[in-house]
């Protein structure tokens, strides 16, 4: 950041389009969605305002006022209270929704009273005519004594004006309070407050009193003085109420002169849709139908591209084998890297379809209706209606889902949500599920139309969800934390999803999946390959031992080759490692090769398939390369002579992956959000223990 860059902070009510504007200004692609609480953390980007002037823009979580009630909102307060002078903004860009300007101006009036230069951007003006709204811009500028611009972040309109207004506002550096509400309530009281440190605006001092949040520039003595105002709590509360009423009165005065709504012109689609989506019976039916549709599509739409990718990678291995010079490097590529990477790439179609559905749901405004439908149920299990958003978005990845809990104001409800989110079936489990399902569940229709494989997948998602709810119930009964449960959620307008937003979202998430898993599998497959094709003396003598063994005399040449391959693998370093854990996992129906894949899965679940692919490729000494599915299908359990991935073992694996905590990144984020290692460790051992016990039961019953 250059010294003379203008620091701009984007502040506004939730869901007003701050992140959309941020993306337009900075060219970044931060997540946008049509429900309150999409952004829960700060994000910086740079923007060229003019030929000579740059700005550093900070996107912030949405908030209805500066008085925070949850973690995401308190980030805004901290930014405004100049905790850190280097970070404090030069210009505040308030983003308001044109449809609900009155409420948006409340926050604006609070920010104005902090006496920081402020630009007001009124967003979504593309909706004005449909809603019958008209604004007298010149009068509004005068009344509010600020730069005001009309924009449409989605349609990329008025962005240039925003840039100009920021520069103008910064140069003028004029910062006058809007209404100084407090003085009007009790001048004597507030004069005393102001006297404590006249370098701060009155409203800043008032916030320090009410929020007990102090900037570095406040001395110990001043802090004590400020805290003495805090003694009379009922008075504080009364003054806060009065202040809010007063602000609304001022805002009404301004809007009366500048803002006109012609109700007769407004078309109201919203109430019609709400009647259906939040209906007693249809509400739940629609929700269930949406879920069914998603799982059906995950299977139906993806089977063709997946098969294509699978065979392409098999051919690629063949091609590489035939065309690369023989040697270690070619072995590494053919047996390690190509199958490993193939085991990730193959799942792109399914993951992308899942992400597509989530993105569309998030963009339409439907998510908030689900929050409304589910609050009562979630509350019974120690959570909050808002917990449903993390539980749904957790089907993509637990990490953003855990971040999204920041909007839940009660610590107990938030903690419970964080702890149970990893039970939600995340996209990293999807690869494991689909490959196992395709091996053990026949591809037939049930009820005449619904794919049995898709139905099994749906049941696995249901299993994750139900377990999350039950775990929450137990936690609610055992955690001794007192905190108030409070629930107010704004219901956004329905919107047609913006294709651009949806496409970016799917692209970003899929990219993150591929590169995240790709990096791990690339490194792992090199290590795996090395450990699988090297070993102590028993490995080096394997070929000799097998050929010289009298028992093997009558084997054909190919059978002999296969025997050599598997004896070699068993005696390699990885084989020895796997063998040593085999006793623990044998009762679950797994052999040591699956055991290796379980171990690597603790780095990230999605490498399970890639790991198996690498191990099986090293083992297969013959020159035919087959697809991953065929390799798994033809794997034989020597104890029974049947398929390794038969029904009991497959089910046991499915259950293991449904419950086990196998994600380092999630553990790290839980540590960060809860600020102690206690909770991630409880998750790790609790979930994995549960997985072990349940898989054991499943396998023993079924086999």
């Amino acid at each position, binding site marked *: 950041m250059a010294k003379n860059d203008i620091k701009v902070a984007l502040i506004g009510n939730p869901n007003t389009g701050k992140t959309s504007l941020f993306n337009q200004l900075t060219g970044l692609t931060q997540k946008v969605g049509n429900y309150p609480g999409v952004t829960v953390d700060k994000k910086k980007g740079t923007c060229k305002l003019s030929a000579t002037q740059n700005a550093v823009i900070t996107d912030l979580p949405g908030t*209805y*006022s500066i*008085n925070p*009630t949850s973690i995401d909102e308190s980030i805004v307060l901290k930014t405004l209270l100049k905790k850190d002078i280097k970070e404090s903004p030069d210009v505040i860009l308030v983003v308001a929704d044109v*449809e*609900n300007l*009155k*409420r948006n101006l*409340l926050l604006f009036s609070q920010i104005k009273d902090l006496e920081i230069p402020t630009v007001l951007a009124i967003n979504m003006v593309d909706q004005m005519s449909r809603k019958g709204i008209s604004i007298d811009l010149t009068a509004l500028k005068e009344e509010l004594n600020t730069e005001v611009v009309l924009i449409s972040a989605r349609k990329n309109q008025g962005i240039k004006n925003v840039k100009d207004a920021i520069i103008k506002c910064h140069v003028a550096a004029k910062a006058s309070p809007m209404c100084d509400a407090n003085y009007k309530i009790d001048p004597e009281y507030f004069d005393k407050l102001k006297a404590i440190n006249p370098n701060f605006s009155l409203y800043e001092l008032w916030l320090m009193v009410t929020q007990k949040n102090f900037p570095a520039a406040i001395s110990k003595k001043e802090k004590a003085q400020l805290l003495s105002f805090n003694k009379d709590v009922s008075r504080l*509360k*009364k003054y*806060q*109420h009065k202040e*809010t*009423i007063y602000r*609304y009165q001022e805002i009404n005065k301004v809007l009366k002169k500048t803002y006109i709504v012609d109700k007769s012109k407004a078309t109201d689609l*919203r*109430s019609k849709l*709400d*009647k259906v989506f*939040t*209906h*007693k*019976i249809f*509400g*739940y039916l629609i929700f269930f139908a949406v879920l069914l549709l998603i799982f059906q599509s995950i299977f139906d739409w993806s089977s063709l591209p997946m098969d294509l990718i699978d065979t392409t990678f098999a051919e690629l291995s063949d091609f590489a084998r035939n065309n690369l010079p023989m040697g270690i490097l070619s072995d590494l590529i053919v047996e390690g890297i190509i199958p490993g990477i193939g085991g990730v790439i193959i799942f792109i179609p399914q993951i992308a379809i899942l992400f597509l559905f989530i993105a569309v749901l998030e963009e339409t405004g439907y998510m*908030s209706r689900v*929050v*409304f*439908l589910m*609050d*009562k*149920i979630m509350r019974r299990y120690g959570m909050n*209606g808002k917990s449903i958003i993390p539980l749904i978005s957790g089907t993509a990845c637990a990490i953003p889902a855990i971040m999204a809990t920041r909007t839940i104001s009660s610590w107990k409800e938030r903690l419970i949500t964080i702890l149970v989110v990893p039970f939600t079936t995340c996209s990293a489990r999807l690869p494991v599920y689909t490959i196992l399902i395709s091996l053990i569940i026949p591809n037939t229709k049930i009820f005449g139309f619904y794919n049995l494989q898709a139905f099994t997948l749906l049941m696995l998602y249901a299993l994750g969800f139900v377990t999350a709810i039950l775990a929450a119930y137990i936690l609610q009964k055992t955690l001794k934390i007192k905190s108030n449960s*409070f*629930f*107010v*959620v*704004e*219901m*956004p307008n329905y919107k047609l999803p913006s294709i651009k937003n949806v496409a970016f979202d799917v692209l970003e998430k899929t990219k993150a999946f591929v590169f995240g898993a790709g990096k791990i599998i690339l490194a792992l497959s090199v290590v795996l390959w090395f450990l699988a094709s090297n070993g102590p003396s028993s490995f080096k003598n394997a070929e000799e031992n097998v050929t010289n063994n009298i028992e093997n005399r009558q084997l054909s040449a190919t059978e002999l080759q296969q025997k050599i391959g598997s004896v070699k693998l068993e005696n390699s370093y990885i084989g020895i490692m796997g063998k040593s854990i085999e006793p623990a996992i044998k009762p679950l129906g797994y052999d040591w090769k699956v055991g290796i894949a379980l171990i690597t899965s603790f780095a990230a679940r999605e490498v399970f398939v890639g790991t198996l692919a690498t191990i099986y490729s090293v083992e297969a000494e013959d020159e035919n390369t087959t697809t991953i599915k065929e390799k798994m299908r033809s794997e034989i359990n020597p104890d029974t002579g049947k398929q390794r991935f038969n029904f009991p073992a497959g089910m046991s694996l499915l259950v293991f992956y449904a419950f086990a905590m196998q994600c380092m990144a999630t553990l790290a984020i839980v540590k960060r959000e809860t600020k102690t290692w206690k909770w991630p460790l409880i998750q790790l051992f609790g979930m994995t223990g549960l997985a072990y016990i349940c898989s054991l039961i499943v396998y023993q019953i079924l086999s």
Partner: protein
Amino acid sequence: MNTIASLGIGEIGYISEGALEHIPLKLLEMGCLPGAEVELIQIAPLKDPIYICVNGSHLAIRKETASQIQILKS
């Protein structure tokens, strides 16, 4: 005594002037002001929460909160 919780679907009421102290600050800031018109849009399937429109804000709040806010029925 009438409160927001006692409204039926589609009914309209006006928040009473005396209700101020009982309105949580957060709701007040979201536009739930004394004198404002409140319309009950929908009640969730399990009778809670409720979905209201007040001062242009469409909000879902719990019965528990709603029953603290007195209104005058029109």
